[in-house]
């Protein structure tokens, strides 16, 4: 006689949803691994509830550290997510079709980063329910306004850019309306790529601008080009330099975990090369900017570089940011032999990504840590577990979305031919 659970495998069998010509792990294995992101999300859930219900006193932020780990993570993921707009920019607008195999992944990662960032920003403000005032009563002079508008609109663009991949799912694609719809989307994707490029350029910049305009914070302030401080351009450059690296990094990690080849090494090398050149340009500008700031601007305010770097935020940060995580990856990424080696390429890209993250950390935390008033004391800051919980959102929902997408959506067009035995 049949027992009730004999049919379960049949129901659980989702192979008909897998991308064409690919194989995926068994459902129960997949479900097991889903536990990881879900646990993280639960941790986030608890933290977020506490913060929203009891208020920001659940964090270790204070009137001196107005911003904390959340803003650092926001800035970092948005910078790393820049791979999305820049790759699609190269792919659709410049017509570098060699990037086609990785553009979907780039968009997906971008989508993850931005949605995560927006969610966190919503929790970061003291009156989330009034958050929309920022749009309704917008102050055109504020860099933050620019950021809010661009990030939200770009997130929408990303959804649209992601839609084709969703519709191309084997089952969904069967619905004729959807099929035609996704085809049309593909044809007009260039428009969204353009829109995305435009928006991203501005909010990546505005994020830098946010700090560059703080003329009462000598550590962060930078001279202006037109209405934009130098940091505006530096942030754009560092973002597009790190974005592609991050995308490729994620792809490589996925390859290691799934034990499959998802994109050809050629594509990765190309991404690395692009990163490398962009990073070079950025590092040149950044170095010049730093020198000008240290030896011309600061003295004019009666300050010295020494005062700007106090423990625990000592001068080692400069060497780390500009040296180890700055010029070193430039050299590595621009050396063909490094790019050819899977491992070294991975390392170089990792350094690159750490570099940009470190840069965002320094601009957020250290700008605030330094007392400006002559008789103020220097204080440091450590996040609470609630803050880490909220910050871990990006990781949690990132993993979740990426796992589902990888399992069901044709993110990697090259996968079938690269993996047929």
């Amino acid at each position: 006689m049949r027992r009730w659970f004999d049919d379960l495998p049949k129901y659980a069998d989702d192979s008909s949803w897998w991308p064409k010509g690919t194989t995926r792990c068994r459902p129960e294995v997949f479900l097991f691994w889903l536990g990881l992101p879900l646990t993280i999300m639960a941790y986030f859930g608890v933290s977020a509830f506490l913060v929203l219900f009891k208020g920001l006193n659940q964090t270790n932020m204070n009137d001196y550290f107005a911003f904390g780990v959340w803003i650092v993570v926001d800035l970092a993921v948005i910078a790393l997510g820049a791979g999305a707009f820049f790759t699609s920019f190269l792919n659709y607008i410049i017509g570098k079709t060699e990037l086609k195999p990785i553009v979907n992944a780039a968009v997906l990662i971008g989508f993850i980063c931005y949605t995560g960032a927006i969610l966190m920003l919503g929790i970061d403000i003291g009156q989330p329910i009034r958050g929309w005032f920022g749009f309704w009563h917008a102050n055109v002079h504020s860099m933050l306004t620019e950021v809010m508008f661009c990030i939200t609109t770009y997130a929408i663009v990303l959804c649209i850019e992601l839609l084709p991949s969703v519709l191309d799912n084997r089952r969904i694609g069967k619905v004729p309306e959807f099929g035609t719809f996704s085809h049309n989307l593909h044809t007009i994707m260039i428009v969204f790529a353009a829109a995305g490029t435009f928006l991203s350029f501005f909010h990546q910049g505005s994020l830098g601008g946010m700090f560059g305009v703080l003329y009462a914070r000598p550590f962060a302030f930078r001279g202006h080009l037109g209405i934009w401080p130098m940091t505006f351009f530096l942030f754009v450059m560092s973002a597009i330099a790190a974005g592609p690296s991050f995308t490729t990094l994620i792809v490589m990690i996925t390859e290691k975990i799934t034990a499959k080849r998802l994109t050809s090494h050629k594509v990765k090398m190309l991404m690395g090369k692009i990163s490398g050149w962009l990073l070079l340009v950025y590092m040149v500008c950044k170095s010049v900017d730093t020198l000008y700031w240290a030896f011309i601007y600061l003295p004019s305010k009666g300050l010295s570089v020494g005062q700007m770097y106090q423990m625990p935020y000592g001068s080692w940060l400069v060497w780390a940011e500009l040296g180890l995580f700055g010029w070193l990856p430039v050299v590595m990424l621009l050396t063909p032999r490094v790019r050819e080696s899977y491992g070294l390429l991975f390392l170089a890209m990792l350094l690159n990504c750490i570099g940009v993250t470190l840069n965002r950390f320094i601009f957020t935390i250290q700008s605030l840590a330094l007392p400006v008033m002559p008789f103020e004391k220097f204080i440091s800051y450590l996040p609470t577990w609630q803050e880490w919980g909220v910050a871990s959102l990006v990781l949690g929902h990132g993993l979740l979305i990426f796992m589902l997408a990888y399992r069901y959506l044709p993110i990697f067009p090259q996968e079938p031919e690269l993996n047929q035995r």
Partner: protein
Amino acid sequence: MWRKNQVRYGMVIDVDKCTGCGACAVACMSENNVGVLPDETDKIRSITWLRVYQIDNGKPFPDTEVAFFPRPCMHCQGGTSGAPGQAFFQEDTDPQEAHTPCVSVCPAIATDYDDATGIVSQIPTRCIGCRYCVAACPYHARYFNWYDVPWPQGTPRGLSPFVSPRMRGVVEKCTFCYARLQRAKNKAFVGGGKVGEMDYQTACTEACPSGAITFGQLQNPAHKVHKLIQSEFAFRLLEKLGTNPKVYYMSKRKWVRMMADNHLSQAKATQAAASGGHK
């Protein structure tokens, strides 16, 4: 510095007269319904619109000496004076562009610069609590409500109806006791006449037992502050940053003056010392 026929309220604080008793700070809090948390020793979360900083000359015994810096909101004007990136900063003749560090960054116009008074406002009910203004202010004059204020039973009876108590999650700061100007104006409307120098004085100015604080219109020759800011002993905090504050300080003590601006006002300090400052 300050345009004629343009009202610019400002303050002069005589550091040599200040005895650090804190009457100004307390009067300010009772005027503006500031709350008290269970732990107020957590200074980086303690809301004191007018904070009295204590500084000392760092000399060994028996030459040690302390002085006090009462620090309200500076109601910065921004503008060109000494500000970096000239291109970006407009003349203070255009109110919209008066580049107050905090006002220019607020995404929701919860704080604005009133060209009719030169006062920087803060509207808690508009504030979304992003704290960007807190980050922008070099004087730490802006305070975020990290907690709901736990008013002890009965104490709300002692609150003033002229300043609205704040809720958790918003930023607040010194407003030069704006509610007093509102009431002074009302009186003028009904009783006729104008708002004179003495009709609008801040709570701290009134309270100070040694008369160290003077308040009035900086550009109005009839007002005391106008004369005081001409003195070679007058100076401002972090003048070099170009925030162009409306709160001035006075002291005959060179080390105090130098302390105020990262030791930049050397020239000014020595000059003043030459003309008979004490010590």
